[in-house]
């Protein structure tokens, strides 16, 4: 009897010990991977940040003296400031175009049934999966020597906005289609029953209830356009160059600490807009 008892405890402790070792190994592996991924993402960012405060004229480690010299240099150079301005204008334009078009199309998909629905879906989504080189080249060739009212279309900021919308709009559309699916249909029906017109219902009932989705998809559109450079490389002239294009050209010739400053400013622009949105969102949450 005693024998049988000890045998059974033996049988249960052995797998338990193995499970404990397994768990420890897994935990160490998970920790190692987390460190790896943090380093993978952080190293280029930290190196760039450090280099932007370098005092020397060349990109070289170790950094001997620290200064804000290259920041003054960046904001003192009309070429780089203009590029930053161009980038922000184009990103804002892309956000407006792609959010408007994407939200409207997503509402049509949610609310109505029509012919060739999956074909239209494919047509709207397809540009998102196309390489930037192909899209940029195609637009540049097709609109290369078109002029509207005597103004050259090629090289204009509006053309770049529309080209960036090819990536931003499908993303907005995809996010909003999922968001609209969460809208309670009974509320929409109730609005109609109370005499609300479709347009009125859309603006006063539907839009406020999906504002978070709209804001976050608009933010995606903004960030994508701000960071995109392949299409912009094909579509801009010297006067409308965006910051990433200028950075790319400068990286190709010779990297200076100014390039690091530009990287930091571009990232800062993204994070500032992100935190503004977060602040707005938190205020919105408190209100309700």
């Amino acid at each position, binding site marked *: 009897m005693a024998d049988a008892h000890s045998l059974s405890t033996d049988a249960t402790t052995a797998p338990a010990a193995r499970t404990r070792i397994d768990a420890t190994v897994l935990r160490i592996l998970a920790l190692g991977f987390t460190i790896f991924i943090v380093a993978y993402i952080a190293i280029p960012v930290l190196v760039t940040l450090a280099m932007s405060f370098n005092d020397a004229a060349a990109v070289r480690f170790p950094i001997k003296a620290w200064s804000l010299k290259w920041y003054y240099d960046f904001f003192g150079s009309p070429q780089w400031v203009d590029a930053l301005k161009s980038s922000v204008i184009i990103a804002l334009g892309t956000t407006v175009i792609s959010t408007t078009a994407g939200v409207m199309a997503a509402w049509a998909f949610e609310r109505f049934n029509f012919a060739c629905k999956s074909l239209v879906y494919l047509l709207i989504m397809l540009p998102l999966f196309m*390489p930037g080189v192909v899209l940029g*080249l195609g637009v540049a060739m097709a609109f290369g020597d078109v002029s509207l009212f005597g103004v050259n279309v090629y090289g204009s900021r509006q053309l770049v906005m529309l080209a960036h919308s090819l990536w931003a709009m499908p993303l907005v559309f995809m996010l909003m289609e999922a968001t609209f699916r969460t809208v309670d249909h009974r509320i929409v029906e109730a609005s109609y029953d109370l005499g609300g017109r479709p347009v009125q219902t859309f603006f006063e009932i539907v839009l406020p209830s999906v504002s978070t989705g709209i804001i976050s998809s608009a933010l995606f559109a903004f960030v994508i356009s701000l960071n995109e450079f392949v299409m912009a490389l094909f579509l801009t002239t010297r006067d409308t160059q965006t910051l990433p294009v200028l950075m790319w050209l400068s990286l190709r010739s010779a990297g200076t600490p100014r390039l690091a400053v530009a990287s930091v400013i571009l990232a800062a622009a993204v994070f500032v807009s992100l935190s503004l949105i977060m602040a707005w969102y938190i205020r919105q949450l408190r209100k309700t």
Partner: protein
Amino acid sequence: MNVRAVSEMEVQDGARRAPRWRMRLTPWLLMAPALSIALAFFGLPIVFMTRMSFNEHIDQRFYVPGFTFDNYAAMLTDPTFSSALWTTMRLALISSIVTVTIGYVFAMLVWLKPKRWRLLFIALALCPLLISEISIIFGWWMFFPKNGLLSYALTSSGLITDKISLMYTEFAAFVGLSYVIFILLSIFDGIDKKVLEASADLGAAPVRTFYEVLLPLTKGGVAAAFAQSFIWAIGTYATPSALGPDTLWTIGYLIQEQMLGKHNWPRAAAFSIVLTMGVAVVMVVIRMLTSKRTALNG
């Protein structure tokens, strides 16, 4: 008076019983901006490029109208172009495998960890999307200079330069990591964590649980993530041309060079069409493989 009466009638009638033609027309009106952008700036350029790819290139002019298959034939006969095709495929394949592996482990970790860590992990996963590709390239370029100490040490110790540069390229192959993580995370979130306990209770070791339970459940997500990553990697040229060896030419790089450097429009168009075809083939294959609804197959 008349207008007022009509509008009042409509209000009473309710939007749901609006005239049939209006019900038909409304979705198309709503989709008009999106459709016209897609058609004018994607459809039209593709048609234009297809025609352009058969034109001829004579005497340094952008293009001369004509009809020739030379531009496509060049991809097979000219060693520069055919090796670029091969390089592009290989790079895209390797970088997708690496990206999906990293993304998979990351998504699994987020799924397994307690909820309070989640926001932090999500912020981390968003980073590659928020930071410009060029900033990342520049960062790695400074960290692993081509003529730097690390490179020198590795080269002089007998390793081949080409391989090292290739390693940098794949290391910096950030393209699409965020997307891959989010695609996989959404798949993981649909799985009940109790399956792990059940598997452990039945005596399976973690490795076996992974192969026999988790992997089959996430198969569809892995395929979708791989396709996404491959499609993004196939068109890239910034990272390989900035970080890779000088001879690491991808199709994307050649398109850019033919267009902006050599001003050979027909050839650039032909390469673009081939690249578009490649993307289309991957999409069709993935559509056949995955039955689950993803962004690719609505």
